């Protein structure tokens, strides 16, 4: 049995214009000690997925169907008390931007202590030792525990965030864009640190990012999401070396590959569909260079190919039609409105 099993999960938001189907029938598993990456553009539902897993959906968000089984226990059915017990103790998270993820009016120490006290009845000394340990682990000066967040630099804050997320030795860490807010050098440091820590502890990790490189570096297995659905899933190496879903291909081409220098960066034209009323058939069809009439009529089948689980009508043709030209920018510019409206992160 996997540690976390997500089955046909649906997460919707109520809005004035109707329900937004942010996550619409997603299934995957995370094994003990495994690193799973979730990749996708902004607004594809990956952050919503994380929030649903840990149970902090905003007021108008709700789980519309499916199951989240943590070590066999269905969290969607669990009482709020139980879920609260599991939070941080078993499933913790590293937030997108540590800048805003720490309460500005309390010291770092107070905030870590608060997490401890919410779950354990440890003695002061034990808590303190644990916090010291964590500070050492993430490479922060113990003396600065009593600083306020605004006294830390961005990198330090992210380390503090990591220290906080690890303090209760959770089984699963959800890292939501752990490095986005940092500069490149700092990104690298933090990623390394995360990897080290994760290897040292036996925790599983779910890394959510739009940055393919991050996933490639840290994850064992990857789930690619598009418009609330899974596009493709499989081992990290396979996904990046030879993806079968056109979207994955495009995404891969959109990010600099550390291994292949001098590569042109491309961007996928068009924008994700309106999730109030998602299109029938393949949701990527509108932006897909390979789309045919069947794509917008029928839901794509699940296809096992090359060690991957892929959802596409045209898996068979991808090697011949798309892969050779995936690096070219014009391949992805097939739609006329090429403006990126820069939708806000959800």
């Amino acid at each position: 049995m996997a540690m976390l099993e997500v089955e046909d999960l649906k997460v919707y938001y109520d809005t004035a214009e109707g329900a937004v189907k942010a996550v619409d029938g997603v299934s995957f598993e995370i094994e003990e000690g495994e690193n799973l990456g979730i990749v996708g553009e902004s607004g594809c539902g990956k952050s919503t997925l994380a929030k649903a897993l840990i149970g902090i959906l905003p007021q108008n968000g709700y789980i519309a169907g499916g199951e989240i089984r943590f070590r066999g226990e269905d969290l969607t059915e669990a009482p709020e008390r139980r879920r609260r017990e599991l939070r941080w103790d078993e499933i913790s998270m590293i937030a997108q931007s540590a800048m805003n993820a720490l309460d500005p009016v309390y010291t770092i120490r107070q905030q870590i202590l608060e997490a401890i006290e919410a779950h354990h009845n440890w003695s002061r000394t034990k808590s303190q030792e644990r916090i010291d340990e964590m500070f050492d682990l993430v490479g922060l000066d113990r003396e600065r525990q009593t600083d306020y967040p605004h006294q830390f630099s961005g990198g330090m804050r992210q380390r503090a965030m990591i220290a906080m997320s690890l303090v209760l030795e959770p089984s699963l860490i959800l890292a939501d864009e752990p490095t986005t807010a940092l500069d490149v050098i700092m990104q690298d440091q933090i990623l390394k640190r995360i990897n080290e820590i994760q290897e040292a502890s036996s925790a599983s990790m779910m890394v959510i990012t739009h940055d393919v490189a991050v996933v490639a570096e840290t994850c064992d297995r990857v789930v690619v999401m598009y418009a609330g659905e899974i596009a493709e899933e499989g081992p990290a190496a396979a996904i990046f070396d030879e993806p079968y879903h056109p979207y994955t291909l495009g995404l891969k081409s959109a990010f600099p590959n550390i291994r292949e220098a001098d590569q042109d960066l491309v961007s996928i034209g068009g924008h994700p569909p309106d999730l109030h009323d998602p299109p029938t058939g393949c949701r990527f069809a509108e932006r897909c260079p390979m789309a045919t009439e069947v794509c917008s009529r029928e839901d794509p089948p699940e296809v096992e190919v090359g060690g991957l689980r892929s959802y596409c009508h045209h898996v068979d043709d991808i090697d011949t039609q798309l892969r050779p030209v995936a690096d070219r920018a014009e391949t992805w510019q097939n739609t006329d409105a090429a403006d990126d409206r820069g939708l806000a992160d959800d």
Partner: protein
Amino acid sequence: MGKLNFFVRRTAQLVVTLWAVATALFMLFRLMPGDPTSYIVSPQMTPEVRQRIIESYGLNDPLWVQYLRYIENLATLDLGRSFNTNSEVSEILATYLPNTLVLMLSAFVLAYAVGVTLGVLTGWYRGSRFEKSTVVTALVGRSIPSFWVGILVIWVFGATFGVIPLSGMTSIGTEPEGFVDMVTSLDFLHHLVAPMLVLAFYYMGYPLLIMRNSMLETLSEDFIDICRAKGLSERAIMFRHAARNAMLPVLTAAAIAVGFAIGGSVLIETVFGWPGIGREMIRAVMRRDYPVAQGTFLVLALSVVLMNFVADLLYGVLDPRVTYE
């Protein structure tokens, strides 16, 4: 260094503001229609008596001399004597100010406690029917003229049902036993209830709405999500984190709220026959009792300026990000 520096600078600013208010007031009262002496000096007094009275008020000196003396007296807290009763203005203030403070502060504290709490809840339960009805109630409280509410309350609960006293601070024939004893007496509390509630209802909307807006902003911050992810209880998040952060603008607003509070209490004191400084000010203004009007007004202005000052200092305590640059 930073903190001290800030304190010194802020204090200097306070003094300058007070000086400006005092100066404006001085000029204002010299602009009042009619010769001020005509109100204190009976035209038929002997020239000697008249002269003596005018001199005793220093009204015959050139304006700038009067001004300098006025400022000098202010600095030594000498606010002059009432034109009407000859009593020292400082004495009048000492008599009425505590009464106003009791009424205003109790109403203010109540309004802030209830208003902020409801603000937290309405912010937290955004979109609920509770939120909508609370917000509308708060708006109504701010919109209905407080003096009119006071009149209705007296009419309904006082005159018709007889559950509240109609006027004053103590029952008729109650010998004063000292301020503390009076304030803690049941009789006093009975008299306090109605004006306090009317005032609090009027004050409440402001902190409530500000707190709600501030809560909404705070609740959209990432750290709230983290707090929830940490498995904290709703209450802990709502109050320890969201409310604590949302408090800051409410605090600044408190200074402004004091200004409104004073306006409200001036009217309520009049309606409820509360022997307070606001009622005394109205009397003095109506009767052209300049020294008393000046004195009471200065005290009211002082309380606003002082509140601003305190709010600034408190802000520094409550928000660790303030650096006193």
